[in-house]
């Protein structure tokens, strides 16, 4: 069997395995062991345990549970509600102020957590019922929260960037910085679309005589100010060259838990257990996939499949933008079915040499990849955020939520096009603050 045929066989079997419903980590691990046995014999199994363990034995990976804990501490506290309320009190006079508050709260919350579902749940719990109470159509109320939630993986800190950084040995700090402006661009596009559609259907605001007093406005600040200070602190520590991402995340996690305890009085054992349990569950899930993906990557490399595939693509001599279009389509289709962590860990080792050979900036590509993953989060059939929103507003049919998300999917496509025409939106900030690479 030629390497190309072997590659095709491995990819088809892996895809079929993942679609069968087996947990992604165990499915990837099983495929890896089976192919090692078939192509390299029983002796090849000697390296499995070492590869699996060493895939996790990296200090950089420590940042994952730490950033997850930051999100879990804030997600289990009413901080999302306070953030939302504070923005609403300051912005309620603006036309469409409620939607801007929602999307703005999503963007700020995204800067506190690296996970999209956490972002979607925290803001949605407050935002969706409030928007519906004030007469916003269900598809706008739910669709905007689904979309706003996806900002969690684009605006730093982002678990997706950490995984991409680890898989491709790209600087995580640089990737985080690269996500800032595209994150703001996407937030702006989401806001513009939502304002346009509610303008078309008729604005809903507070009653004309409704006013928040200055006292009420200022009362909302003290509760959220410390969390905003943590964002600034973590960013300063990361980019001021003070500490590594893992150290910044660890201190950020400790501070977020402390603030949740002090401000929201979450000192009962049950509150602590909820934070720790959520952190442990999400981290173990991601880290097990990482270990299995490292084993899978080892199999791909030892069978020369990565190299063969990259060479085959290079030999096609297609235009680099056609190639990027094909890669985007491939990622989108993967994103419709497979969770982001698995896609990034499985495809990055294959795609990285291809995009480097085609002359694309890997940091810029990390941003494009992440936006593709965001589409998968709000696109059927998997669309995790859709189901989170559905659990918040169970009386809104899932199909209505899905229709509500479609315009935001188009906003994401537009963002990919804008970033392709102006890649500096992603690369300027990291190059400006950390110096250009090579």
């Amino acid at each position, binding site marked *: 069997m030629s390497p190309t045929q072997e590659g095709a066989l491995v990819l088809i079997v892996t895809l079929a395995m993942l679609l069968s419903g087996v*947990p992604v980590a165990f499915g990837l691990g099983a495929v890896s062991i089976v192919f090692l046995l078939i192509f390299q014999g029983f002796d090849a199994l000697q390296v499995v345990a070492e590869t699996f363990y060493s895939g996790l034995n990296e200090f950089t990976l420590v940042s994952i549970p730490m950033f997850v804990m930051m999100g879990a501490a804030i997600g289990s506290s009413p901080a999302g509600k306070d953030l939302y309320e504070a923005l609403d009190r300051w912005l309620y006079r603006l036309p469409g102020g409620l939607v801007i508050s929602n999307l703005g709260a999503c963007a700020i919350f995204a800067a506190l957590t690296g996970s999209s579902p956490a972002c979607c749940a925290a803001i949605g719990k407050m935002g969706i019922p409030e928007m519906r109470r004030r007469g916003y159509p269900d598809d706008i109320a739910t669709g905007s929260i689904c979309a706003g939630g996806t900002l969690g993986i684009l605006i730093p800190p982002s678990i997706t960037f950490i995984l991409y950084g680890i898989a491709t040995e790209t600087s995580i700090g640089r990737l985080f910085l690269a996500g800032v402006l595209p994150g703001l661009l996407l937030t702006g596009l989401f806001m513009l679309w939502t304002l346009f559609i509610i303008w078309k259907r008729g604005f809903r605001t507070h009653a004309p005589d409704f006013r928040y007093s200055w006292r009420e406005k200022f009362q909302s600040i003290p509760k959220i100010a410390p969390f905003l200070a943590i964002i600034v602190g973590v960013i300063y520590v990361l980019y001021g060259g003070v500490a590594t991402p893992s150290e910044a995340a660890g201190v950020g996690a*400790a501070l977020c838990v402390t603030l949740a305890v002090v401000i929201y009085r979450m000192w009962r054992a049950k509150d602590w257990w909820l934070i720790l349990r959520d952190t442990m569950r999400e981290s*173990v899930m991601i880290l097990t996939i990482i270990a299995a993906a490292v084993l899978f990557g080892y199999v791909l490399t030892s069978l020369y499949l990565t190299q063969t595939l990259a060479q085959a693509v290079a030999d096609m001599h297609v235009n680099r933008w056609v190639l990027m279009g094909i890669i985007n389509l491939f990622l989108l289709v993967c994103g419709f079915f497979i969770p982001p962590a698995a896609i990034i860990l499985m495809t990055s080792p294959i795609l990285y040499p291809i995009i480097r050979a085609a002359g694309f900036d890997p940091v810029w590509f990390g941003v494009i990849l992440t936006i593709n993953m965001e589409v998968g989060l709000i696109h059927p059939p998997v669309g995790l955020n859709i189901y989170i929103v559905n659990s918040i507003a169970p009386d809104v049919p899932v199909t209505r939520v899905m229709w509500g998300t479609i315009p935001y999917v188009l906003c994401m496509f537009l963002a990919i096009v804008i970033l392709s025409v102006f890649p500096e939106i992603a690369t300027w900030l990291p190059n400006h603050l950390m110096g250009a690479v090579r």
Partner: protein
Amino acid sequence: MRGANRPGGAVDGYLRAVGLLSRAAGVFAAGLIAFGVLVICDMVIERYLLGRDTVWQIDVVTYCVVAATFIGSAYVLKTRGHVNVDVLPLHVGPRVRFWLALATGLLALAFCVVLFVLGSLYWHEAWANNWRSDTVWRARLWIPYAAMPVGLGLLVLQYVAELICLVTGRTPPFGIGADRLRE
């Protein structure tokens, strides 16, 4: 085995015992992550505030997170936290879904058993040869490596429990039941 399926029989006893073990492992894993956070804070204070060299902190926090991953895995399986793609299971009939769940469950169990055996051998090698880490701390590696056979052993027990629950109808295939009908 007669009476094995009766409430209070051998099967129920096994399921209860494994459930308790997995839960205890989950609490321990969560504790390891919390301990890791404290160690990082200590490292940051020592290194950046007190200007001291740190020797053991990076090793300890990394081993804690790795150990939490292995040891917490059984609890995560029990609480359906290991993410899967359920597009196909959602769109097939109940009968096919059952066989699909059984087949994928057995495959995943086989993987866990193989990794448990290989992990145990790897741990034994580290223990017998007194392997040390190549960091300044020179940690005895059999201690962190023990998390692999222990965690995978628990995972195997939990997977067997999951398969028993599936076959005896205690839980629906892929957890797709009344509570998971999304539409």
